[in-house]
């Protein structure tokens, strides 16, 4: 640095700069500050309050409440129902979706990608919409009953599956079909088809070839999709709340009831602890399954699919397409149809009612809920992108251990049920310095907490995939660290950021479990409004719920379609 001239006086290039490793160490830590604070304030703190309230309701450790809850007959029956409906839902989903996964991944037919996209729609729908759709499909005014009456005459039996386990199970299959289809089908479409060919030539029958070759290779995907479905149905809230009834409540629904109807917070805390334990156990099993995957050669999807040749194969394909049409599309079509149904023929009354203040169910016109949802959803998206983006950047910069830690820590809210989070908000964020009681901010914060894991999961692989030499090249060419980030990372990650935003928005807008605890009465979101409308008698309220559900489905679908258009050529993963 002896002042040879302006051209050589770039101080950053001096050899005195600290070694990269030392300089980098504090960068991830600095980036992590905000996500860590966010997680501590809005996840760990509420969780600690739940544990406190559950184990020490009066301030000192007292296991009596927990013990009473665990031995209580009604709680045991709720826990038992929660468990068995989750197991049966998982098995049913596998039974229906595995043949479907085979059809869309191994059979080549026109419209294949369309079918795959259509089958994914239910998964991204808000649970409240799913509940409404099945209420419409399985209720007495369903077109199914109209069809039955048309065929059998007025003496036809009326199908009414509302408030039955059957309805819950069907809705769970509908909701989770795509999980199995995408997880298992994604792997299946890349399995080398010659492995089964080899087995056939060696003397295996079609079934033996599947059982001996494909099934073991698919087992990790089947197991992990089953674990995800199990987790989703174990923590099922919106669907059960709307479709279930007395004696058909999951732990989630009981937490809600204990909080809002019985006002028994210690009971709710104990239930939340029970739920947490179950979820942690399920996650532990999931983690073990993930680690046991066979290393195998995958082929391009195009090489694995063959057109159906025999009559049996064509019948199999037709049956699966019928399942997609009947199970997956019928509820949505009926939902839309019901939103236009009036006492005599079709009418726009329900849609007009959305923007009519005469309604007394909500403190405001239902249409207000749309505005609230969009506002909250947008705020939650920004928050989730900020927290998730910083955390993902830190994880990508840090070494493997730090990165795994961040990944795990931010996945925690994903595992914890939304209801538990909402309940935790309710009991924890009421004391200074974090007194947010009644604050409308709670809604976007809760939604952001739930959306953040998806943001991290979307951004992290992309950030990790950036070749470190690109950054080095930019630095050698004279870019300062921040400039490197702006010139290299940001353009590459831009696409992923949009995808993450779409995901976060769809999740936030449809979020129900946590929002229902923290949303103020006069500021309902769309799912909350739908739930309240459904809770009231009267055709008008029902129609408005259907119209609102249709609108919510459309908003969510729009966000997802945007993602699908951006994201090209990726294997579906959860």
């Amino acid at each position, binding site marked *: 640095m002896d002042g040879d001239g302006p051209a050589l006086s770039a101080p950053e290039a001096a050899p005195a700069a600290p070694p990269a490793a030392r300089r980098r160490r504090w960068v991830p830590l600095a980036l992590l500050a905000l996500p860590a604070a966010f997680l501590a304030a809005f996840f760990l703190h509420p969780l600690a309050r739940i544990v406190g309230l559950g184990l020490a309701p009066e301030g000192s450790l007292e296991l009596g409440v927990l013990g009473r809850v665990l031995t209580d007959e009604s709680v045991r029956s709720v826990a038992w129902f929660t468990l068995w409906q989750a197991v049966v839902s998982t098995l049913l989903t596998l039974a229906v979706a595995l043949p479907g996964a085979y059809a869309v991944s191994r059979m080549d037919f026109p419209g294949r990608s369309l079918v795959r996209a259509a089958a994914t729609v239910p998964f991204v729908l808000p649970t409240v919409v799913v509940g409404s759709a099945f209420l419409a499909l399985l209720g007495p005014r369903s077109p199914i009953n109209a069809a039955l009456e048309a065929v059998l005459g007025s003496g036809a039996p009326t199908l009414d599956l509302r408030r039955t386990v059957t309805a819950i199970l069907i809705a769970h299959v509908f909701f989770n079909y795509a999980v199995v289809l995408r997880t298992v089908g994604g792997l299946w479409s890349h399995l080398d088809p010659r492995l089964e060919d*080899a087995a056939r*030539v060696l003397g*295996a029958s079609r079934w033996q070839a599947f059982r001996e070759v494909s099934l073991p290779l698919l087992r990790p995907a089947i197991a992990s999709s089953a674990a995800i479905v199990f987790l989703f149905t174990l923590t099922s809230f919106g669907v059960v709340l709307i479709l279930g009834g007395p004696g058909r409540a999951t732990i989630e629904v009981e937490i809600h009831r204990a909080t809002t109807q019985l006002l028994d917070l210690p009971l709710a805390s104990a239930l939340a602890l029970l739920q947490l334990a179950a979820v942690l156990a399920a996650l532990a099993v999931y983690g073990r399954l993930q680690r046991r995957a066979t*290393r195998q050669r995958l082929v391009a999807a195009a090489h694995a699919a063959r057109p159906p040749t025999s009559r049996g194969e064509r019948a199999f394909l037709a049956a699966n397409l019928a399942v997609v049409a009947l199970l997956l599309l019928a509820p949505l079509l009926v939902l839309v149809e019901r939103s236009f149904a009036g006492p005599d023929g079709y009418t726009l009354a329900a849609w007009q009612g959305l923007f009519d203040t005469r309604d007394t169910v909500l403190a405001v016109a239902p249409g207000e809920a749309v505005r609230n949802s969009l506002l909250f959803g947008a705020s939650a998206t920004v928050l989730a992108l900020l927290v998730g983006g910083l955390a993902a950047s830190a994880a990508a910069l840090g070494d493997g251990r730090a990165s795994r830690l961040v990944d795990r820590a931010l996945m925690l809210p994903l595992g914890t049920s939304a209801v538990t989070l909402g309940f935790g908000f309710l009991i924890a964020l009421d004391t200074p310095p974090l007194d947010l009681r009644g604050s409308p901010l709670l809604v976007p914060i809760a939604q952001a907490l739930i959306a953040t894991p998806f943001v991290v999961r979307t951004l992290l692989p992309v950030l990790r995939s950036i070749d470190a030499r690109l950054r080095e090249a930019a630095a050698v060419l004279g870019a300062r660290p921040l400039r490197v980030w702006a010139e290299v990372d940001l353009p590459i990650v831009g696409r992923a950021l949009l995808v993450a935003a779409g995901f976060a928005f769809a999740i936030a807008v449809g979020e129900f479990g946590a929002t229902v605890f923290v949303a103020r009465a006069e500021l309902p979101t769309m799912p909350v409004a739908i739930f309240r409308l459904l809770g009231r008698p009267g055709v008008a309220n029902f129609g408005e719920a259907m119209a609102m559900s249709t609108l919510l489905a459309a908003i969510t679908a729009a966000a997802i379609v945007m993602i699908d258009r951006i994201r090209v050529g990726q294997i579906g993963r959860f």
Partner: protein
Amino acid sequence: MLEVTGLTVAYGAHVAVDNVDLDAARGEVVCVLGPSGCGKSTLLRAIAGLEPPVAGRIALGGQDVTAARPDERHVGLMFQDHALFPHRSVGENVAFGPRMRGAAAADIERAVRDSLALVDLEGFADRPVAEISGGEQQRVALARAIAPRPRLLMLDEPLGSLDRALRDRLLTELPRLFAAVGTTVLYVTHDQEEALSLADRVAVMRDGRFAQIGAPEAVWRAPADGFVARFLGHEPILAATVRGGVAATALADVPVEAADGEALLVVLPGAVSLAADAGDPAGPKVSGEVTARRFAGDHLALVVATDAGVELTVGVWRAPAPEPGERVDLAIDPAEVTVLPAGDRAS
């Protein structure tokens, strides 16, 4: 043993195998040779029962199996890139066939041991297939194919993915192994050296049809048409007019045994030598200039631009060899040329 008659396999509008006839006697090694995409792999898959034919008949040991399922045919197929079951050990891969055929545990164990011994992989049974080398995987695939003692063993480009040294070694080992197994072999490759050295008979395939079937030496010395000659690497192939036992070409007039008319003259490798080394001094002579010299280990290959405008390659086994730029006289041995009917030079 194997009789294929009028076999046609189509993918939609694309006819991959077009009305093919092929037979193989018990214990015979037949090599199907052709460029990639000529339909040779499809032919194997159809014989294995993995592709349904649109027409034709396949018989094994006198028994019609055209409509039989793959698992009923009792054939062996070694796939290109092996298709080993990644979730099973070496031994489990080899045991798969005998197990599917319902063999007793002791027989399965013996079949695994014998098959692995045949491919020199004793002691590999417990290794995971993902942890062995490419050459070892190739041997496991072969062992797996022969373990159920198939009546017909089919191999699809078995040496395709191996490096040259390994390939050359296996090329010398395979005939010994085929003899030991004693089964009929159908071997598909795009490599003429593999086909010519292994086969009792070679079938050259082109666009889903056989261009020529015959003993390796016969195919080599008398290719049926320009395509086969070119595919075997023969050059140059010259347009010729035959009149009174002499073929007139741009290069030289060469005495041949052929009927009068338009024809193609195929110059086989070894037909051209330096005039000074020529065994038959009476043969036609041409002269030209050396343009390039390539060292090929035991000999030098000279590229000579002849005055007639045709490029020839000459092998020289003695030193000193002519340098690039030097003029040389070349002799053409009339016994090392062959005449084909004209007509498909363009193809």
